[in-house]
């Protein structure tokens, strides 16, 4: 069975997509079969992997409304072992059409659809939108665990209490086995005292839930790194675009920590 990991934080621009894409690519680089599911109408994960709208006809929206099986929308990427279930702006319609229609088990649509292909991948990574709405609830309900990227900037922890509350509600109801896989500090800059403050706050609250490098127990932190910011416009993960860069190394460490289950 695959392990399904959702990348979530309802705060915008904190590094969810960057984490989803680069973690997926790094896992694939470790010979794991990976499916990246883009479930954000902004479709940034899809474009980050080099796909544009004209490259594919169907997307995750069609799967969610039941007109295509998930296997029919999946695309092979240029990276070995990495497949993508793409998204499209049309996905915004899902809330109106499907969710508000009061359907039964509407939080479990994605989980149901993923079942079909779950055996074919080692990891399924889901990139969610910046909201705690129906789409993110579906993503969390379908997942074994969640990774929460925290941008090392002002008000970094804003909204985190609501996200934790949502996770614990889901645990009490439709997804009892949901776990917080860990918090990932992102866009950390060594020159910035605020970054250090955020990291220290995070360590204080969630010491045991930070990712660590196995051999030296060092906490995994994604630095603010220009290569990471550039890579989406080349349609490549940073691990391909600038392997060996600090950003790339951080995501490779994260992938290793996930694989050993740390």
């Amino acid at each position, binding site marked *: 069975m695959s392990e399904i990991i959702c990348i979530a934080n309802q705060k915008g621009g904190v590094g969810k997509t960057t984490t989803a894409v680069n973690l997926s690519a790094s896992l694939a680089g470790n010979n794991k079969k990976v499916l990246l599911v883009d479930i954000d109408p902004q479709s940034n994960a899809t474009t980050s992997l080099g796909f544009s709208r004209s490259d594919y006809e169907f997307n995750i929206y069609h799967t969610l409304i039941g007109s295509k099986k998930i296997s029919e929308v999946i695309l092979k990427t240029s990276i070995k072992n990495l497949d993508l279930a793409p998204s499209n702006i049309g996905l915004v319609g899902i809330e109106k059409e499907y969710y508000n229609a009061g359907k039964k088990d509407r939080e479990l649509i994605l989980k149901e659809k993923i079942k079909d292909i779950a055996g074919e991948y080692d990891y399924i990574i889901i990139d969610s939108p910046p909201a705690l709405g129906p789409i993110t609830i579906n993503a969390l309900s379908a997942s074994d665990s969640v990774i929460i990227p925290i941008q090392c900037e002002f008000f970094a922890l*804003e909204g985190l209490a609501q996200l934790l509350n949502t996770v614990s509600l889901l645990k009490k109801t439709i997804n009892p086995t949901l776990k917080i896989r860990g918090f990932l500090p992102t866009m950390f800059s060594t020159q910035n005292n605020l970054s250090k403050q955020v990291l220290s706050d995070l360590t204080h609250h969630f010491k045991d839930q930070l990712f660590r490098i196995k051999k030296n127990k060092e906490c995994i932190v994604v630095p603010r790194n220009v290569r990471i910011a550039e890579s989406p416009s080349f349609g490549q993960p940073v691990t391909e675009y600038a392997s060996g860069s600090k950003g790339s190394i951080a995501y490779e460490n994260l992938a290793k920590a996930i694989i050993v289950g740390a």
Partner: protein
Amino acid sequence: MEILSFDSLESTQNYLIDAVTKGELKPPIAVIAKEQSSGVGSRDNEWIGVVGNLFFSFALALETLPKDLKIESASLYFSFIMKELLSRYRDDIYMKWPNDIYIHNQKIGGTITKKIEKNLICGIGINIIKSPNSTYGCLEVAIDPLNILQEYIKELKKMPSWKQIFIKYQIEFEKYKNSYVHINNYQKSLSSAQLCEDGSIIINKKRMYSLR
């Protein structure tokens, strides 16, 4: 901020309230006592002083407080800043609604506030070396109380906004939700409580404020 240090006071809080009311002392000012005979405290819990524990009160003009801080949330705000400071020494310190500081299910300290005209008087008591009785815990770290007060004043100078503090307090609240709190002498679980932006909580549709 000037610090007035006493060997013994009946209560730093009463002393400062009195002095500010009479106009003898003007904010910003802090008062610390090595020992206090009647203590600060809330409910019936007297914070009777043992030498080596920390007792202090400070006065600030309301206009110098963060713009977004409501007076009802002040005790929570000042207590949380103390909790963050103490967590430099131990990492198992947490805060329970509204403003009690805990280690291992035992209260080690708390905060009270009082508005006197255009000033706020805030008193904080922390058991540092010894708990007054077995229901309380203590920090068990060998640091000079005066030193903690000086560090605390440094933190106060940064005067974070209420929002900055509240974001972190919310997380703390979420983490320790399953523990109990005392409200009017009843134990209540916070597991179904909702925390509001001003630090009050709603339990069973009733809104409750920290009255300290």
